[in-house]
Every structure is written in C-alpha cells, then in structure tokens.
C-alpha cells in the first residue's frame, strides 16, 4: 500500500474525526449526564465545566465536514443528500445544544431553565446517538446505486445494528463525560459522580462486547483488512488494555489516567473503524463496484496537495492554541460572575 495523497487524506479525516470524538465526546457526555444533576448550582457546574471548551471542540466536526467536502466531494454529496432527514435532525440537535448553554443562565425563571436543561440533554443524546448510527450504517453498508445515490429511506438507516452502535456511542460518551466531570468537580457532587463512572463503564463494557460479537458475525468485511495490515491487531490489544485500565485507574483513585485511557479507547475504536472501512468511504450493499472509495470519490491530486499544504501550515497553530486554551481553563469548575 503506497502512501498516496488519497490515503493521506483518509488518515487526516480519521485524525479530525478522532479529535472530534475525544474532545466533543466529553462535552456531549456531560450533556447526556445533565439530568442527573440535582440542584441549579450543580447544573451550572456541569455547563461551566465545558463552557469555554465546547465551541472549540465542535470546530473539529465543522472542519471534518469541510475537509470531507474538499477531499472527497462525491462521498460528501452522496452521504449528505442520502441521509437528508438524519442530517437535519443532527443540525437541529446541534443548534439546540449551542443555544441552550448560551441562553439557560440568562434568566432566573425556573421554567426557562428547565426548558433549556431538557433541550441540552435531548440534543446531546440525540446527536451522540446519530453519530453512532452513522458509524453503524457505514460499517454495514448502504443501498447505494450505480448513480451514486442512495435508494433506501430514512427508516432503513435505523436498522438494529446501527442502533446498537448508536447505543454504544451514548454509553461511551457518557462514560467519557463522567470521568471528565469527576476531574472538574469537588466534594459531595464528585462522590456521586464516582458512582456514575462505574455504572457508565459497566454499560459501555456490556455494549462493547455485544457490538464486537455482532460485528464479527454479521459484518464479515470488518476484519478483512487485518490480513493486509496485521498491525491492526496491536491496536485491538491496545484498545483492550486501554479499556481495562479505566476501572483500574478509577479504583486506584487516579481519574487523570482514567481519562487518558478513555481518550485512548475512543482513538483505538476510531482507528479500527477506519481499518474496517478502508478503502471505502461509503460501502454499497448492492454491489461492491458501486461503493465510493478514497479513489473514485476524491478531488484531483492538485486539490489534495493544496489542502495538505493548508493542513501542514494550519495544524500546528490549531494544536498550539488548543493546548493553550485547555491550559488556561485547567482545574476545578468555579462558578463566578462570568459563568453561564
């Protein structure tokens, strides 16, 4: 396998998606756990734990979308037009998530706050579920015809396997978010979150094993690339170790390690997803010839080259100020004058 620009962009898209899943993963997780907060102060602590960060995190998704459009326009066009309703649903979820944080604390009226609390929770959960469903559908393949258009309906997307992967995503982000919240809180609230870490880990573990078994049985193509890329087995092993380290770190009282392990778990799962998909972007369940691959759906070599230069110039800046921002907002959440 030579290192073509197409492959480089497949990998870079994977990096963007992994960055997104790790970063927005914890703030989506905080949203999923939001109803468990008991008092108004606790809800504000939850929202302020992600307040300065969620917007930057979401930019990873926006950039992923832009890069997919630029690098593989055919796949972008097919996916986005085929899953019209699913994407509209995702858009509404993301809109509500953004504005519920912005508006919630602007008024002290209980009804107002309750409304935005619910919308924050529902939007976070729906967005996460949809991401998982998308991954599940990508794994299982879609009814894409020779004209590169999807011939199924919205409800064909909600088959059992994608929904199962969607549930896994919800459990994964809830776990990721609970570890993050544990790091950002103190006192009695932190003690309660300690219990949530165990429970969300349990849910994640159960679904992870179930999805693995179902994948091995019903998605035969998922492991075909492991023959040409044996190093993938190392990632499988690392993934298992990372997952195993989460309860160990929680038990030892080292939540920082648990968070890093959770990040590694997400990265490993993303990597395995990419390996399973390669070289396809969208698998046609009707005929393998009709699948959209990183070759037949790509932009010209010149564009891929230009974009690589843009990425090489831009990414160091992005990483530098992302680090600075996370450093500035390190430590426990303090509710102050500028909080939500």
């Amino acid at each position, binding site marked *: 396998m030579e290192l073509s620009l197409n492959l480089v962009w497949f990998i870079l898209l994977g990096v963007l998606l992994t960055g997104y899943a790790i970063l927005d993963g914890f703030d989506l997780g905080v949203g999923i756990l939001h109803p468990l907060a008991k008092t108004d102060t606790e809800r504000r602590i939850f929202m302020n734990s992600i307040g300065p960060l969620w917007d930057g995190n979401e930019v990873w998704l*926006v950039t992923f979308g832009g890069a997919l459009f630029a690098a593989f326009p055919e796949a972008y066009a097919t996916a986005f037009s085929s899953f019209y309703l699913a994407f509209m649903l995702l858009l509404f979820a993301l809109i509500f998530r953004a504005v519920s944080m912005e508006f919630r604390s602007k008024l002290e009226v209980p009804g107002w706050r309750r409304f935005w609390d619910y919308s924050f929770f529902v939007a976070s959960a729906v967005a996460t579920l949809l991401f998982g469903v998308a991954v599940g559908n990508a794994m299982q393949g879609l009814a894409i015809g020779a004209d*590169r258009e999807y011939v199924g309906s919205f409800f064909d997307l909600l088959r059992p396997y994608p929904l199962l992967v969607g549930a896994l995503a919800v459990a994964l982000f809830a776990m990721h978010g609970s570890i993050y919240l544990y790091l950002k809180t103190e006192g009695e609230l932190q003690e309660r979150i300690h219990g949530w870490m165990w429970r969300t880990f349990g849910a994640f573990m159960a679904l992870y094993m179930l999805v693995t078994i179902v994948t091995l049985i019903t998605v035969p193509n998922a492991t075909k690339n492991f023959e040409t890329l044996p190093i993938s087995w190392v990632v499988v092993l690392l993934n298992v170790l990372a997952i195993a380290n989460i309860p160990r770190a929680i038990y030892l009282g080292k939540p920082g390690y648990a968070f890093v392990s959770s990040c590694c778990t997400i990265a490993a799962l993303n990597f395995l997803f990419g390996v399973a998909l390669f070289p396809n972007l969208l698998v046609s369940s009707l005929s393998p010839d009709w699948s959209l691959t990183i070759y037949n759906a790509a932009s010209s070599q010149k564009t891929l080259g230009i974009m690589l230069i843009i990425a090489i110039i831009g990414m160091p800046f992005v990483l530098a100020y992302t680090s600075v*921002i996370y450093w500035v907002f390190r430590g426990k959440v303090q509710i102050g004058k500028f909080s939500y």
Partner: protein
Amino acid sequence: MELDALTLSRFQFALTVAFHYLFPPLTIGLGVIMVYTEGKFLRTKDPQYEALTRFLTRIFAVTFAMGVASGIVMEFQFGTNWSTYSRYVGDVFGSALAAEGIFAFFLESGFLAVLVFGWDRVSPKMHFFSTCMVSLGSMFSAIWIVVANSWQQTPAGHKIVEFGTGQRAEITSFWELVFNPSSMHRLGHVLLGAFILGSFFVMSISAYYILKKRFEEPAKRMFSAALGLGTVAAILAAFSGHFQAATVAETQPSKLAAFEGLFHTPKEGEGAPLYIIGFPDQENRTVNAGIAVPGLLSWLVYGDMGRPVAGLDQFPPDEWPPVALTFYSYHIMVLLGVFFIVITLLAQFLRWRGTLFQTRWLMWVFVFAIVGPYIANQLGWMAAEVGRQPWVVYGLLKTADAFSPTVPAAQIATSIALFIVIYSLLFFLWLYVLNNKIQQGPVELEAAGAKREVGFFEAAAEAAGKEHLTGSEVTEDVAEREEE
C-alpha cells in the same frame, strides 16, 4: 410557482443564509470596536474602557453562539440540498472551505473562550491578545467564504473535466481561484458592510443610553469610537461599491443590467442612464416611473458618458436574473449607503461643533438607524446572489441543475417548516437576551465602587428618579424597572 424540490431548496437556502447573516457581520464589526476599547483600556487604565469592553463581550458572545449554530447549517446544506452542486464544485470550493475551518474557526472559537471566560484567568495583555485574535479570526472567516462565493460569481483558476457520473470543475491554480476577478472587491465591500453594521449597532445602544441619561460618560466614548469607524467605513463602502459595480459590468454583465434595470443596450454614443428610483417591469421590458440621470451609468462604469453598457437584450431571456428583485435590492442598498454617509457626516459636524450629544432628535435617529445596515447587508447579498441567477456558478452550472435529485420535496418542506419555527424562536430569544444585556449596561462600572465617576452616578440616579444611590441600589433599581 410549483413547490418542487428545486424551489423548496432555493427557499431553504435563502432562509438559512439570511438568518445566518444576521450574526457574522455584527461579530466582525463589534470585534473591531472591542479591540479599540480594550486597547484604550490597556493604554489609559481607565476602568470605563474596561467596563465597555466587558459589556460588548457579552453581546458578542451571545451573537457568536447564534452565528455558530446557524453557520453549521450552511456547511451541511451544500451536501444535503445541493449534492449535484457539491460534486461539481467540491474540487475548487472545498479548499477554501477547508482553509476557513483550519485558519479561521479554530482561531476564533479558541480565543473566544479566553475572551468570555478568561478575564480572571489571564493577564490583561493576554486577554487583549485574545480579543485581537477573535477579531482577526472573524475576518479570516469572511475572507474564505467570500473567496469561495466569488469563485461562483467569476470562476477562475479551474478546468472542466468528466468525472464520476457527470462533469466537475478542477482546480488549475489556487492563487487564480483566490484572487479571481471579483474576490478582493467583494471582500472589501463585505467587511466594510460589517464595520458599518457594528458601528451603527454600538451607536444605537450609546444613543439610547445618552437619551435615557444612563452610563452617559462611557456611552459618549463608545459613540465617538463607533462614529469614527462608521464614517470611514460608510465613505469607503461607496467607493468599494463603485469599483465592484465596474467589475460586475465586466465579468457579469447580465447582473449589472439587472441591477440597473437596463433592458435595452443603448446605441453607440448614447450612454446608459442611471436610475435613482423606478419600478422595473420585466414583462414589458421597461422601468416605470423611473427618475434617471442620462449617461451616468456609462460614466460610472467606463468613465465615458457616451459608451454603451450591455443591456439585458444581449442575453437570452432564460438567462436573465429576476430583474425586479435584483433592481430593488441593489437600489435600496445604495440608497441606504448614501443615508449612512449623510448621517455620519452630520454627526461628525455636530461633534466638531460640540453639540452632538445634545441633539436629541439625531440621537433618536441613531437609536433606530441600526435597522438600516441590517437591511443593507441582507440586500447586498440578495442582489449578489439573485443577480447571478439562473446560474449557481456563473456561466457554468445552472441552479436548476444543481440540487439534490434524490431528496423528496416533502422532506425539504418539513425541514423548512422546522427551520422557520426554530429560527423564529431563536431570533426572539436573541433579541430578548440582547435587550436584557443592553438594559443592564456596563454593570462593572457600578461594581467598581470607589473608582466610579460622580457624573455617571448622578445621571443614573436621575434616570431612576432618586437623589442618591449606591452601586448595588442602582443595579436593583434597574432590575426592578426591567420587571415592569
């Protein structure tokens, strides 16, 4: 008009882009003013400037959140509603969009966190740096979006090739794409439009405070700063608009003809008239009840009153833009532009005379004048986009061939209905929160306690109808009045 997928998709795009464009120009304009007020604070250490910056930051933050939430819709929509377009332009359009993500969004959203939440966490210099970066990021964003859009207006640096199930444009030169014939003129005009909007927004709030005798001292400073920016931007916008129109005459003659309601190409030596006002009638190919200056259009475009300008009769009728909509949006924008120049120059004159802030009627005009730049910004885009029709990429791809063939009209109609409900809700919430923030004003001045200036507190007390108030009492009083 038949409500098919094409019509619905066009309506949805118009709706979502118009809604989105309520927010970015304001953040771009406010960003510049915040850099000014915070820079002043760093130099003078005057707490009034700090309070002003913090006040503007709160308005900026809620507007920015709306811009992000509505902006992600735009990116998705290319794929969801315009998949044929996306396949056609992806190779060219995509790199500009990717550049926007990498160079603008990360910068803006990252430093926004410091700007909004970082007052107590970073040094004043670092905070000022963040403000500058956010302002820069918002402009970078405009650069790449205008570049991408301008390529649709005046395509350059590409070739057309067969690919996949149809044709597409492939890039041949990145710099020709970026510096396509219209991009720099259009970028200048878009940024100036944003500066005008931002400055009129700030002047509107300031004038309101001055009239209500609240926060008078900081309001006067804020007004003066914004007036400076607004005057310069309004005058420059007229020049930039002129040069842009000259470019349009050269590169998109059918659009210019629609701008000006020029149905018939004048004979050699006659020159084209410029309509000040009028009512174009596309059916009968004439402008009704128009007031026109003969030869002025020719003079503006070519500097020669006798040289003819191409009229719509040079183009087959099925390649005409909708003339009336283009004509009205363009003309109202231009008239508003004249109004901005007149009103800012008048304010400058009164300021020089020293009577500006006592001229109550003018302050009232400024309170409501904010509507003007909003309409002008919207109409500017409308003129540019409607004037390009029936092409989505001028001369290359028709709008009617660009939409997603597989999306059922009923699904688009459903999403439009939801967009209307959600956007209306968000719009009123935004106005409500904005009003809330404006009623509160630069509250840090009150919190500053001992550092406060007597003049301001007397004014605040007077507004509240009481003799003496402490800072917290003023705050309570403001809250009470809001409840009423």
